[in-house]
């Protein structure tokens, strides 16, 4: 399985970097890992860096939207950065850009998240 997830806290933003293919199988693993972090109660905002995500289907979309709902409940924000064309296409088809902010790189995204 060529899939990898790494997590990093930058101040109160949890950065989730995904690598490989995000489908139903790998989405379940990502959901579990992130929710474990969120349960600790110290994460305010969530940033997904998808620079090395080569594939995503609607299961990945569902997982992202699920995390979005969760973080909103605790008054946090969520952003996404660094989309490859194939992933961009799925976001576009699904209309997710209407609710999620997308940035070119991590630092821009974090800056925007930290602005009240």
């Amino acid at each position, binding site marked *: 399985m060529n899939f990898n997830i790494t997590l990093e806290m930058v101040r109160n933003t949890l950065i989730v970097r995904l690598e490989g293919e995000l*489908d139903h199988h790998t989405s379940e693993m990502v959901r579990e890992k992130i929710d474990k972090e969120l349960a600790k109660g110290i994460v305010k905002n969530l940033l997904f860096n998808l620079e090395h995500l080569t*594939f995503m*289907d*609607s*299961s990945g979309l*569902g997982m992202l*939207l699920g995390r979005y709902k969760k973080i909103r409940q605790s008054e946090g924000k969520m952003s996404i950065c660094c989309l490859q064309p*194939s992933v961009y*296409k*799925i976001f576009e088809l699904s209309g997710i850009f209407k609710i999620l902010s997308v940035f070119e790189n991590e630092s821009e995204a974090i800056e925007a998240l930290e602005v009240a």
Partner: protein
Amino acid sequence: MGANFMKLQFAAKSENESFARVAVASFISQLDPTLEEINDIKTVVSEAVTNSIIHGYEEDEKGIVTIYVSYDGEMVELTIEDNGKGIEDVESALQPLYTTKPELERSGMGFTIMENLMDDMEVESKIGEGTKVVLRKRFAINNTVN
């Protein structure tokens, strides 16, 4: 390239979703598709196979998913089939954001994505018998060298 076909069956396990994508993509690569065409095919395979596993068999791994792929010239036909529980209301199922499993964080975008990425989609389903999704797409002719 003439005509060609393959038929693939496998256990309804989520680990096999990635394998199914690779197998279909590798078969289709004989048509010398663009990277975008390959990705679109991988996406629709992933959507339909995941639906069979989650909705058709409700994650009972004893279920079997069947994929049939054929091409004749630049015309590709893809069929994904299960013998699972079937779809009660196909018309609703095809609507964007419609899902019967919101508790599993399904987005309800599977059929919408399949329809958008391919030229043509047909969904046949019978309660208690199973579901069959037929997808067709014409590939760019100028790709087909050899």
